């Protein structure tokens, strides 16, 4: 679908101060003009040319002009449409965004690769170590030794009750040193995080 090639009403040559390399002498020789308003006016983004009247068309016609805005949740991604939905076939060619997904950087620093290399014997080993000597074998140490993530260690086993008690006391000791400002800032951060899931 052809979006119309826009012909700007003002050619760029009419805006000498917007050109990168401009002949300053010729500008100084010109009559002075109050330029702030004009500059603002010319820098203002004009409405898309597809919204103007197209004089070459004599019939009603449909154009494809996706908006410059973040996508709406009410428009189901094509991958999520059921196979018998008619929109799946309609959306094939024209409306696919040609985004080069390969070149985009990932959010996470290290690529997320799951290895699934630990067996049941390893897991019993982890449990035994953690229950036996929780001070030495912390989550990070276990993770390093078994080459897995600390989250996986937490999923597999729980710390013993004494270790939990110690950890609780440490946390209380740390929190007791917080003042009102830090406490409030922490609470605010927590509340802000909750709004992410509500998409506010």
């Amino acid at each position, binding site marked *: 679908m052809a979006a119309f090639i826009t012909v700007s009403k003002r050619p760029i040559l009419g805006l000498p101060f917007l050109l990168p390399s401009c002949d300053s002498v010729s500008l100084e020789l010109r009559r002075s003009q109050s330029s702030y308003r004009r500059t603002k006016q010319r820098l203002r983004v004009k409405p898309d040319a597809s919204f103007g009247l197209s004089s070459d068309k004599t019939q009603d016609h*449909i154009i494809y*002009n996706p908006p410059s805005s973040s996508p709406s949740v009410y428009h189901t991604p094509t991958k999520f449409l059921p196979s018998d939905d008619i929109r799946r076939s*309609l959306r094939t060619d024209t409306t696919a965004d040609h985004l080069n997904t390969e070149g985009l950087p990932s959010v996470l620093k290290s690529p997320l690769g799951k290895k699934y290399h630990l067996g049941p014997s390893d897991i019993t080993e982890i449990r035994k170590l953690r229950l036996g000597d929780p001070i030495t074998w912390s989550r990070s140490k276990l993770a390093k030794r078994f080459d897995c993530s600390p989250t996986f260690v937490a999923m597999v086993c729980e710390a013993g009750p004494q270790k939990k008690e110690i950890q609780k006391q440490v946390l209380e000791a740390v929190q007791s040193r917080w003042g009102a400002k830090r406490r409030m800032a922490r609470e605010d951060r927590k509340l802000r995080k909750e709004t992410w899931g509500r998409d506010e």
Partner: protein
Amino acid sequence: MFSRSALARAFALPLEQATRQSLTTTTFRACLHQASTPSNTSSEEPLSATPRAQFSTPTEQPTHPTPTANPPVTRADVPIAKQPLPPTFMTPLKVSKSLLDTLPLLSTQKPHYISAHLHDRPYLLTEGDHLRLPFLMPKVKPGDVLRFNRASILGSRDFTLKGAPYVDERLFECRVRVMGVDSEPLRVKEKTKRRRRHVQKITSKHRYTLLRVMEVKIKTVEELEKEGEVVVE
């Protein structure tokens, strides 16, 4: 204005494409259909405000005798673009092939908006919007249903149906309901003349019609086929 029920039926029919071509430079007049049939008691249609003027699909209209026999009442002081035009459907709707191909893309993508024109003024509307016209619409009562039949743009998120300059009214349906009459607070303008110790106070208090958009719908290809459209290049 055209009067009442006799003409209402004939004028419910929008203007045809052929005359549109010739009239492009001269007449494009917004049609404000309102037929004030006497409000009968709603015995057959309870649970709803009696729609006193409601036109559904225009093709269901019978073959009216000669719509051109009723020339539009033109007034010299009103610009030609703002005058209403009795629509005439002598020929079926003509749509281009490309429009038919892309119409499913537009009609399956909801919601829709419409840039409806009334007295040559555009209003960007979606379903459920509240519209306060900048004038008092005559001869309407609260509860009436009007159909807007002049639009320059209809669209969804990604697609836009553009008219040249107006979309044929058989391609869409936009209905609004009259909610009542509102007025602005009293305005007082103080006028003074020189060397005259007198202040003249001019007051004005305009009244406006309130509308509510009931539906904005773009017809699908199947509905157009049912109404008998003609595909042209």
